């Protein structure tokens, strides 16, 4: 371990900094927000620098590795590392959390506690993506819930206690399965170890794999969320404040997808091959079901919350596609939705600050006085409905093409799934544009204008949206800037997954195209040799 412990630094720095908050002299809560913002920026800068000096794009394995024995009796190690699955999400966490701190500027209730929790979450979230020890993963996963619970239950809306309790019960219930599965895996076989790569290398019987997989799947399915385990999300979102939204949609949901990739697909590939069709079907259900529900919602926050669920369906289909392209698309969809979801929820917060209502029926024509809000809402919604030139489009396209060319499924199954998923392509603009129309377009709602003063967006708000749009549009214009960060890792992971599909074993990947069957076999042989 010759290199500087970068990952430990980025995790512990905000947590340590948060401990100083109580002693900062601050009466009106204005110093502490600057303090939190600066800490966030410094941490993000460290992260970018560490990525720049210590991360090799072509190395599919773990990098920036650190390992310290913590409790030797339990074989608990403080072991960190980042590969292609972790690194982009760690960066996303740093980015979105820093912006969330800036979005929290108007928070006046208990600012010290609020920023303390934000900084604690900052470190905690990065830790979830970076830890390489199963027990430690479980610990940070659980610890992560506490600040979210507190933020929901103290700064939430009217039904905040119901929502917060639902959230904590749901996720804690899910985590129970992680604990059981993790312990089973750790004690399985001859050696007792919590190290993730050692656990992955163990040999599990097929039935055990199925049980473990189901356990993980329930836990991560709650987080992602997957139908029918999703109902905590609209409630939590319906009551949360804008910064909490940004973290929930931007990062917390991605933990589910990340863990599905790392543990379900990466550690239990045989079970993954068995469960994959279930994932695909649930993915389609997520897309279509949540899109319809979102269309019917009259509450702005719940509408966007369901749209998040709908978008997460693509992640599931991508993970289960058994193609490089699909896995890569799933990863990109997580990053892309992290940015787009955060921007949409920030806009919801912006709008609520002005209209003091979330019901679409009580709005209408508010774009007339707020031209900038209008522009930002339109851009973010277009990003969310997968307009080309923005990140959502390329992610969805990769999942579509990846699944269409997958050789793990029958032709009929693929046709049905793709047609249904493509229905989502029609439904997304329906609910998003209807929302824009009812909220911003048309003549002004007289009652609303009488009671409230609609002031156009302030520079801080424009800046936050601009910050989120830069990567959204950047990825849309040239996706390789992000895909190359994780490409080597996802390709390796896909190869591992493919090894477990009985029909695909011993076969090189071919894009299942009738043309490739017809044309010369030469390129395929080359591919097989290179594997």
């Amino acid at each position, binding site marked *: 371990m010759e290199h500087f412990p970068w990952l430990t630094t980025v995790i512990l720095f905000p947590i340590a900094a948060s401990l100083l908050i109580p002693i900062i002299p601050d009466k009106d809560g204005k110093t502490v927000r600057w303090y939190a913002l600066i800490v966030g920026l410094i941490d993000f800068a460290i992260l970018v620098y560490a990525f720049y000096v210590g991360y090799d794009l072509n190395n599919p394995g773990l990098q920036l590795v650190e390992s310290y024995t913590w409790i030797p009796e339990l074989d608990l190690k403080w072991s960190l590392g980042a590969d292609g699955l972790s690194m982009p999400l760690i960066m996303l966490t740093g980015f979105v959390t820093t912006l969330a701190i800036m979005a929290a500027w108007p928070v006046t209730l208990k600012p010290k506690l609020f920023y303390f929790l934000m900084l604690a979450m900052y470190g905690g979230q990065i830790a979830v993506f970076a830890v390489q020890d199963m027990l430690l993963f479980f610990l940070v996963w659980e610890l992560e819930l506490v600040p979210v619970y507190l933020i929901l239950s103290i700064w939430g809306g009217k039904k905040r206690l119901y929502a917060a309790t*639902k959230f904590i019960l749901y996720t804690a219930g899910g985590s129970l399965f992680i604990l059981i599965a993790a312990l089973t895996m750790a004690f399985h076989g001859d050696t007792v170890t919590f190290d993730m790569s050692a656990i992955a290398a163990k040999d599990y019987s097929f039935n055990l794999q199925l049980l473990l997989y189901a356990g993980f799947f329930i836990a991560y399915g709650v987080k992602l969320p997957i139908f029918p385990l999703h109902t905590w999300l609209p409630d939590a979102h319906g009551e949360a404040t804008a910064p909490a939204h940004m973290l929930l949609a931007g990062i917390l949901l991605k933990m589910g997808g990340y863990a599905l990739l790392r543990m379900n697909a990466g550690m239990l590939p045989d079970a993954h091959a068995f469960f994959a069709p279930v994932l695909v079907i649930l993915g389609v259900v997520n897309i279509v079901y949540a899109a319809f529900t979102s269309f019917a919602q009259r509450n702005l926050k719940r509408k966007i919350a369901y749209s998040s669920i709908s978008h997460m369906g693509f992640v599931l289909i991508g993970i289960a596609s058994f193609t*490089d392209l699909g896995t890569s*698309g799933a990863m990109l969809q997580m990053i892309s939705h992290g940015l787009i979801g955060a921007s949409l929820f920030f806009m919801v917060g912006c709008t609520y600050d002005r209209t003091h209502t979330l019901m679409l029926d009580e709005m209408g024509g508010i774009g007339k006085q707020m031209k900038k809000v209008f*522009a930002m809402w339109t851009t973010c919604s277009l990003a969310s409905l997968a307009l080309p*030139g923005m990140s959502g489009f390329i992610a969805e396209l990769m999942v579509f093409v*990846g699944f269409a060319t997958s050789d793990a499924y029958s032709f009929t199954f693929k046709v049905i799934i793709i047609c249904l998923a493509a229905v989502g392509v029609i439904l997304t603009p329906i609910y998003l544009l209807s929302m824009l129309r009812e909220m911003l377009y*048309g003549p002004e709602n007289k009652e609303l204008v009488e009671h409230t003063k609609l002031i156009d967006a302030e520079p801080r708000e424009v800046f936050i949206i*601009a910050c989120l749009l830069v990567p959204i549009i950047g990825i849309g214009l040239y996706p390789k800037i992000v895909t190359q960060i994780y490409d080597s890792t996802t390709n390796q992971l896909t190869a591992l997954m493919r090894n477990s599909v009985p029909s695909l074993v011993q076969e090189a990947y071919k894009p299942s195209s009738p043309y490739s069957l017809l044309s010369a076999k030469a390129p395929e042989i080359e591919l097989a040799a290179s594997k």
Partner: protein
Amino acid sequence: MEPLYQYAWLIPVLPLLGATLVGIGLISLNKATNNLRQIVAVFIVSITGVAMVMSFAILWSQIQGHPVYNRTIEWASAGDFRLTMGYTIDHISSLMLVIVTTVAFLVMIYTDGYMAHDDGYVRFYAYLSIFSSSMLGLVISPNLVQVYIFWELVGMCSYLLIGFWFDRKPAADACQKAFVTNRVGDFGLLLGMLGLYWATGSFEFGVMGERLEELVSSGTLWSGLAVIFAILVFLGPVAKSAQFPLHVWLPDAMEGPTPISALIHAATMVAAGVFLIARMYPVFENIPIAMNTIAWTGAATAFIGATIALTQNDIKKGLAYSTMSQLGYMVMAMGIGSYTAGLFHLMTHAYFKAMLFLCSGSVIHGMEAVVGHNPVVAQDMRLMGGLRKYMPVTAITFLIGTLAICGIPPFAGFWSKDEILGQAMTANPALWFIGWATAGLTAFYMFRMYFMTFEGEFRGNDTGIRQQLLAASGVVFGPGAMDTKEHEDHGHDDSPHESPLTMALPLVVLAIPSVALGLIGRPWANNFEEFIHAPSESLAEITAEAGQFDWTEFGIMAGLSVAIATAGIIVAFLAYRAKKIDPNAIAKKYPALYKFSLNKWYFDEIYNQVFVIGSRRLARQIMEVDSRVVDGAVNLTGLATLLSGEGLKYLETGRAQFYALIVFAAVLGFVLVFSIT
């Protein structure tokens, strides 16, 4: 010439940069940027001018025989998958570049006059510039994915521009309708694209066609699948080019400002569908069923559009249905295999229809001075009449456009439409008959429009008609129009006036191609066909064909077309100018037919009932399931734990004997259970 090609990517990128700059200005320094007004306009127009000059240079070098130029970069990759983006300059893309940049350039100049008093002047220029950029990107796309990307982007621009006056409710509804209807088409395009990629492993037009042909002929791929893929791809053009049954968005799109109706919804974007069919020719050509579907869809659209246009009173709606009908001609031409004729009509139509729309804008601009800014009265032809006296330039250019669209020689439309009809006769006489009958209808409704607008007495000051129209439009416009000061109910002049120079000049310039452009496609010396022909045809075949030109056949076909057009014009003259025929009497005699046409074949009503209300109901039901059943189960579990906890707490009495009793009972229970089993 090489540097010109190396930097051809600037053509779409320049307008994008212009739009980005203005956009950033609007967001960060809103007031200052809005005050710049004409400086911004000059900036955007000159950028488009640069793109136009480059396009002309490229077209010239292509005409001189420069080989096809391709340049691509790797855009996305994962594993073995590679997706490239870039641009390709060949004959058809160089032609499209010129069409798009010239129309865009003229429309932008026109906009200065038309939008002079609008608050959104600067924003409008930014939107126009993004649109030009996307449209130019579309025509130089080398593969289907890139076409799809720009296809969606032009759709977005169309959405933004239709909803430009977003505080008007009809505009708000129309822009969403346009986007969603187009998404339905894109749904097909996406599926078709995935299917073709699955089958052929490529997104390149030529490669897809070649491999698909090979697969079908060798029997590896069921030919029905190829048909399905082709028709799915064709759904994209059906929506974008407003073909039956996805045409419903185009007439509503007229809620946008008139310059964009000319640019987007007449000349360029709606023609993108025809362009895509042309690009996909290597695939479509070998699939006869798909080609027939295309041809019949086009013919049906041409006919439906024309029949609806007969009774429209809103000048822009009338032109919109005429656009739909003309697009039907182009699509039909593509379907019967006359690639050249379809694109030829695309080009001539782009110019004369853009001019007609700009004329209608000029008329509306003039009318607004008299009747105020409410579109219900400003666009209704029943309030117009006799405008030729007040706006001579507009009247003459409109007449030229009308003659061109009716197919009167030697105007541009004659040559292109006649070529389509001639080829339709060879392909299928039934298609020819529909096209021919539609030509008659076209002549009638276009001259009806001309006579109602420009001839006779000016009716704009007739308050009776005004009140009637306002009352008929009812609540829809009322509140919105009265809310704001700019929507005055009454104008300030008694008579309309000719539009300012910036508006009149583009009309005059567009009149030139509307008159003369057809001459490059004379059937006996078809310069156009030598330049633009189907990828599978060779130049030698074309010159050989041209050598066998038959004057008698041409005479008969052209004579028939001109005859029916003249008949249409005469009927329109008798009804709307000489007043020998009373159109109202005919309408009363056949009320069902009249209503059918006036209500646009009831498409909107049916779609509203089936799709809009249906999908809303379904969504509400699913939401009910979500909150009652799925979430209900969750809450029920919560409730059950609470209740059982509440119940169990009474057992915790604190007395050890009671606990012992419970333990004893439990043990007894276990023993009993195990002894039984």
